[in-house]
């Protein structure tokens, strides 16, 4: 029995929460991540994401259904970031100045592949689902 589950049951036994509230809490605990008790090990994703997927299903009244399926290797993103490192320093300064003049506080020299690696490693948890309308479904995720 996990510590969180025991705490919920103790609160129920003490009358601090109702049965329904305890049930909801236990369901939330079981659905969420359960850290390994006593091991002290940090959770790590099973595998790093390798592809960025975009799946879109659109139903147009005039043109009918449109299906879009795109899979892009994340390695392509890393290679694209490395392209930015090819820009000569004096050109980078001019680009940064122009960006600042337009209100974009971006420094091209700070865009480095190692910074992107950390971002990509966490993309495994990214999922974007657009399902608001019956004729439009968009899903963006990493796999």
């Amino acid at each position, binding site marked *: 029995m996990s510590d969180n589950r025991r705490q919920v049951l103790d609160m129920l036994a003490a009358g601090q929460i109702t049965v329904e509230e305890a049930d909801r809490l236990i369901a939330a605990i079981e659905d969420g991540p359960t850290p390994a008790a006593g091991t002290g090990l940090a959770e790590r994703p099973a595998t790093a994401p390798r*592809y960025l997927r975009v799946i879109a299903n659109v139903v147009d009244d005039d*043109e*009918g*259904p*449109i*299906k*879009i*399926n*795109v*899979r*892009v*290797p994340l*390695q*392509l993103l*890393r*290679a*694209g970031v*490395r*392209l930015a*490192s*090819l*820009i*000569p320093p*004096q*050109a980078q300064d001019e680009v940064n100045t122009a960006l600042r003049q337009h209100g974009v506080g971006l420094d091209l020299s700070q865009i480095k592949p190692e910074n992107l690696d950390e971002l990509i490693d966490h993309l495994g948890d990214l999922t974007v689902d657009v399902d608001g309308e019956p004729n439009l479904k968009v899903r963006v995720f990493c796999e």
Partner: protein
Amino acid sequence: MIPLAAVIAVRPGWRSSNLRLWIPVPLFLVWLLALPFLVLALPIFFIACLASRMDPFRALWVLWQLLCALRKTHVSVEHREASILVHIF
């Protein structure tokens, strides 16, 4: 490793046509055919990089990585009237 093959599938937008073109592209042949031209263009590329104050060897390495990263790219768009699929192996 650079991609060696690709597949392009196209279904034309002719309402009365069920024709589907399946075109395997042997990219390794494309690279072999382009290799002499790339070798001839290499000095020009080096001069352009040096004039732009870019490291030509690093530029070549980045372009090579960009090419290698194209593997396993998949794009498909299906429409009632036409569809296209591109898959790079």
